[in-house]
């Protein structure tokens, strides 16, 4: 029996996502979607592509490619672990959606978005990825805004900025091909690098194009935005790393390294500083996501033999932190109406798990020891400080911003009236999901090697980076 990888990890989940749109039972949608994502992750991790496996009389082989309209969707054997990571992260959100009570929106559309993002990584030529990412953006709009709520400015800016990225990336791909053909043309190289930079600046919401993220966190359900803030930048960063891997002149350009480092530091520092002064829990998470992207960009700027493993180590930490954070915010929003400090004051007594989840997620973003983001941040900080101590100080300022933000959040959440009693309002699934998320943060922080089952093979997907 022969099947092929794109059909299994792109077409099947996309089709399943469409089918789930017709199911109204939130629990069934969450369990079906989460289970499918988990199965896809396990299959990707443990069943090799392009290798025949024998089960008694039955022989199974997964082909790596499928041809569509003259082009190819190709999932190479080395990308199995990446697929496992992506679908495992998605399953985290899909199971969590049950506790967040957002299953009927997040799971079907989330599955379709995940499939499209995998297609973005699989399509050949690889620069067509921009088209699949744009389709994922368009599909995400109904997830962010219902027909019964007036859309705010954040969603419109999100749509504009992400859509503008697509032409820049496609044009850059064409220009880069020209540079490959005539490597001595410095003007063309500069033009293509600028166009490519603009495209990624829009796509990754690089400073100052990230103003839609805090707006969106205020306007839309935190759990939904959290999912997008995880999957979109994660896949886009890997797509961007693909550019570095393919074009040696970009990879070896000192100007690019310097630009990546400056952009990453700007995002980490401004993200941390702005987070420290916010009075809205959603906006703090928004700036944390900005900083997370900054850390990933910084990882691309250091020596790729160290930077690429750090980049991949950041992915599970980001997934777990944002999943826990967005679920906790959803629960607090249910109980406090808004996520402003003034409304959520003293919520530790009503939603102890959610409040603890927010504090731990903020601390994790701030590289607090024992938590998930600490190992990759520490490794990154060490590498950055070797190159420039000034850069390390700026990174430290960003991290300190999140620690200040965590202390302020703790103060607000704990600041109940003097005789207010403890009245936990979280239900059992919410407590279980939050509890598991918090345990996960500690496991990743204390034993980062547990993630190596997914991460060890990942650098093999690049031909040059990380070698």
């Amino acid at each position, binding site marked *: 029996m022969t099947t092929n990888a794109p059909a299994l990890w792109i077409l099947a989940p996309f089709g399943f996502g469409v089918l789930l749109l017709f199911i109204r039972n939130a629990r069934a949608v969450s369990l079906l979607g989460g289970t499918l994502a988990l199965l896809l992750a396990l299959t990707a991790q443990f069943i090799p592509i392009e290798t025949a496996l024998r089960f008694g009389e039955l022989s199974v082989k997964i082909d790596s490619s499928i041809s569509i309209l*003259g082009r190819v969707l190709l999932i190479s054997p080395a990308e199995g672990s990446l697929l496992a990571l992506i679908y495992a992260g998605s399953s985290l959100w899909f199971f969590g959606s049950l506790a967040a009570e957002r299953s009927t929106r997040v799971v079907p559309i989330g599955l379709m978005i995940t499939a499209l993002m995998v297609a973005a990584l699989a399509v050949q030529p690889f620069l*067509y990825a921009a088209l699949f990412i744009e389709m994922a953006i368009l599909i995400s709009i109904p997830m962010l805004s219902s027909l019964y*709520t*007036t859309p705010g400015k954040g969603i419109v800016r999100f749509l*504009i900025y992400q859509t503008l990225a697509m032409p820049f990336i496609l044009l850059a791909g064409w220009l880069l091909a020209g540079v490959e053909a005539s490597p001595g043309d410095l003007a063309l190289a500069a*033009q293509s690098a600028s166009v490519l930079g603009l495209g990624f600046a829009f796509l990754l919401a690089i400073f100052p194009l990230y103003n839609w993220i805090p707006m969106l966190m205020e306007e839309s359900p935190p759990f939904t935005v959290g999912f997008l803030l995880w999957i979109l930048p994660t896949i886009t960063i890997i797509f961007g790393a693909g550019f570095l891997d393919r074009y040696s002149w970009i990879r070896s350009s000192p100007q690019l390294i310097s630009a990546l480092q400056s952009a990453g530091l700007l995002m980490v520092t401004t993200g941390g500083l702005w987070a420290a002064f916010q009075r809205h829990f959603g906006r703090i998470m928004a700036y944390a996501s900005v900083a997370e992207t900054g850390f990933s960009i910084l990882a691309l700027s250091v020596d790729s033999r160290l930077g690429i493993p750090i980049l991949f180590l950041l992915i599970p930490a980001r997934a777990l932190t944002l999943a826990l954070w967005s679920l906790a915010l959803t629960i607090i929003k249910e109980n406090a109406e808004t996520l402003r400090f003034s409304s959520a004051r003293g919520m530790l007594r009503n939603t102890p798990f959610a409040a603890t989840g927010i504090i731990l997620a903020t601390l994790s973003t701030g590289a607090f020891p024992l938590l998930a983001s600490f190992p990759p941040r520490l490794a990154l900080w060490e590498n950055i400080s070797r190159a420039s101590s000034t850069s390390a100080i700026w990174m430290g300022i960003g991290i300190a911003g999140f620690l200040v933000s965590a202390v302020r959040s703790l103060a607000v959440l704990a600041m109940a009236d003097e005789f207010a009693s403890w009245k936990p309002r979280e239900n059992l699934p919410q407590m279980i999901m939050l509890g598991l998320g918090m345990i996960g943060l500690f496991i990743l922080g204390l034993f980062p090697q547990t993630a190596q089952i997914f991460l060890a093979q990942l650098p093999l997907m690049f031909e040059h980076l990380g070698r």
Partner: protein
Amino acid sequence: MNILVWVAVIIVLITSVGLLIARDWRIGIIFLAAQYLAMFILLLPHLPLGMASVKVVTGWMSSAILGMTRSDLREDDTEENLWPRGRLFSLFAAGMVVLIVAGATPAVNNIMADAGMAVTAGGLLLVGSGLLHLGITSQILRVTQGLLTVIAGFEIIYSSVESSALVVALLVTINLGLALVGSYLMLASQHREPETP
């Protein structure tokens, strides 16, 4: 063909400026549909007739989707939300775009494998006017029109270097998707919380 292509550029100029200054949404939709006709002519030097036709039909479908949705909405809620509101300002800004496009066309034409001056000018005009549109409005119908205009301009320029069926299919899907998303957001923006007695 050469004259026809330059006529298309003039149509693009008229429609893109018209989109900027039109206050009535019906006229805006008509300009958008006419813009796709001009786009069709500008695509013909580089794309087969079939592919160019697919794009123009998709553009008209997008215009129809937006028009049909808008026609169902209340008039009072969709007042013009342009800033600054003056037509003179819009004309001045459009003039700036035309000047910039005139200056940039030879260089871009050179980069884009000699796509043709008219094709490059038409594409750049659409991109420039679409960006201008996005910069001065936050009304959802106009934002959608602006994005569709930018993508139409990009498609014209990109067609000179890429004519893959997959890219055409995906861009067509994106155009339709944008129109549907615009309609969805327009419908959502009409929603009002029920008044409490």
